[in-house]
């Protein structure tokens, strides 16, 4: 009974959080988890962060030392535009994505070990374009929809150990659950389709170290392994010429991986009240997202092909991210933060698609923490500046968005409460 109960609880928890995941902005990753990290532009590898170390540098969990619980959420408001070649501009429908986080951590007895567990959204993305001109040149006036929703949530038991007064190490196991659905011009006969209910479980891990050089300097690093996400159990609906609507009950997606990542960071206590931090990250999208193939089988019409492969050439580039943050203690109980985050878009122009447009590159952030006895209230606001890219690949069946111009911007609000006891 117990053997079934625990995995069941894990699955239920992950499934509860997944529909709430939404847009992320370093590719498909969040720039930071929690309002403290977000307020610093995501520069958190060498900065003590309490419970959110579970999703950041797990080594930082060892510096928490007491029992602490944190709950919070980001609220993301993406804004996108799509202009097909020779067609008119379409705005994304209003979307708001809550991205919750919950974590608990404590020192284990009187030992040098700390442990924690958390559920957080690693990232995701989604668009909702309605009445997009499918082919303004050859089929003027024919409009259809483009929609996508990818969510990826992780449950992460974490342990951390104080090797010495200066060196801490930590590791997180990431049990991930991802969901995906999309509409690709669903009423366009012979080519368009609608995919629902794809889901996948996956495992990966993160290892982190932190070294306190002296009272002013600390440095840290993390390595995150990649998560191969084998989506299956989906459904695909397609209008086939002469057959009408055909439903495929066995749909899978191959070639979709959440990438490995290496981060290094430094923090510098410039004055007693001012902390500066900087992180550099490499996200290996080029080996994670290449050609993603949806394969649909088991049609409900015997005249339809038994199996159809639908490849999406994506060939994302690696991403280099720089995050800079500053924290200043205005009063004994009130800290303010500001940050900047840049990550080149991993999307390649020859394969640019309005369904998966992870385009924003520059982010500015501000935030604050108000502390009251054992409570902290954290808030952060992120603005991702507009980036516009054009698909410059040759037109053809494998590149239906040739010439399309896609813009992406986003505002995100983060709130977090922590209690130490």
């Amino acid at each position, binding site marked *: 009974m117990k053997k079934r109960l625990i995995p069941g609880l894990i699955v239920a928890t992950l499934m509860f959080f997944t529909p709430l995941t939404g847009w992320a902005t370093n590719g498909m990753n969040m720039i930071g988890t929690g309002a403290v990290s977000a307020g610093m532009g995501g520069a958190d590898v060498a900065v*003590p962060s309490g419970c959110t170390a579970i999703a950041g540098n797990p080594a930082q969990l*060892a*510096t*928490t*030392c*007491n029992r602490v619980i944190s709950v919070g959420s980001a609220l993301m408001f993406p804004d996108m535009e799509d202009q097909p070649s020779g067609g008119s501009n379409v705005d994304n429908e209003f979307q708001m994505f809550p991205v919750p986080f919950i974590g608990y951590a404590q*020192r284990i007895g*009187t030992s*040098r070990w700390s442990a924690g567990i958390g559920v957080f959204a690693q990232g995701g993305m989604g668009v909702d374009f309605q009445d997009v001109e499918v082919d303004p040149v050859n089929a003027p006036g024919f409009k259809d929809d483009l929609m996508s929703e990818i969510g990826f949530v992780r449950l992460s038991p974490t342990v951390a150990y*104080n090797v010495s*007064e*200066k060196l*801490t190490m930590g590791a997180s196991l990431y049990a991930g659950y991802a969901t995906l659905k999309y509409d690709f011009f669903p009423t366009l006969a012979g080519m368009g389709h609608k995919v629902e209910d794809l889901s996948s479980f996956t495992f990966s891990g993160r290892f982190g170290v932190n070294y*306190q050089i002296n*009272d*002013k300097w600390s440095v840290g690093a993390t390595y995150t392994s990649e998560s191969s996400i084998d989506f299956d159990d989906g459904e695909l609906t397609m209008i086939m010429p002469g057959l009408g609507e055909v439903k495929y009950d066995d749909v899978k997606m191959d070639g979709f991986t959440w990438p490995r990542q290496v981060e290094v960071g*430094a923090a*510098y*206590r*410039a*004055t*007693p009240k*001012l902390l*500066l931090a*900087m992180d*550099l990250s490499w996200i290996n999208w080029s080996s994670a997202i290449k050609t993603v193939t949806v394969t649909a089988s088991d049609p409900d019409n015997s005249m339809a092909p038994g199996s159809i492969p639908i490849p999406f050439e994506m060939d994302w580039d690696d991403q*280099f991210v*720089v995050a*800079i943050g500053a924290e200043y*203690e205005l009063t*004994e*109980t009130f800290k303010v933060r500001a940050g*900047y985050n*840049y*990550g*080149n878009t991993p999307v390649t122009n020859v394969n640019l698609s309005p369904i998966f447009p992870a385009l924003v590159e520059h982010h500015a952030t501000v935030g604050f923490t108000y*502390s009251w*006895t*054992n409570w902290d209230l954290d808030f952060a606001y992120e603005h991702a500046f507009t980036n516009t890219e054009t698909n410059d690949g040759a037109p053809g069946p494998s590149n239906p968005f040739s010439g399309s111009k896609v813009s992406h911007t986003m505002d995100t609000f983060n709130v977090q409460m922590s209690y*130490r*006891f």
Partner: protein
Amino acid sequence: MQGIKLILIALAAFVTLTIFTVPVTAGEHGEQGVHWLTYEQGLEKQQELKKPLLLFFHLSYCYRCKDMERRVYKDSKVISFINQNFIPVIVDLDKEKQTAKRFEVTYTPTHIFITPDGSTALREKDVITKSRFERMLEYMATGKYKTMNFDTYEKCQP
């Protein structure tokens, strides 16, 4: 390419900031810091001087303890007031487990004030703001703990 340029610019900006923001610490102003003793040394000293004990329970890697040290124990007024009126004792929970157990302390930072007759007058967990900590020091140093509790004392303050 543009990304690499930006990373280099950001690196240069970070290094420049760290070079030109000169830290100010109590030590640089000639303060010697709090004259911390071990618990055993503190007890001996208390027999001799009859002053209150200030116990600071910490861990060397606890970031909240470092916050306390940075915000409060680096202040020159606080340092000299403690050195004049208290017997300051620092207890590392990893190294002095018996002392931590004796005072039932598992949380860091924790502060306990012990009167010259050996009773506990004040006990508080977590980082204490400098202004509140100064009121605690005054409350103990002026002997107000003999006639009222700290909450009442705080309410009487302007």
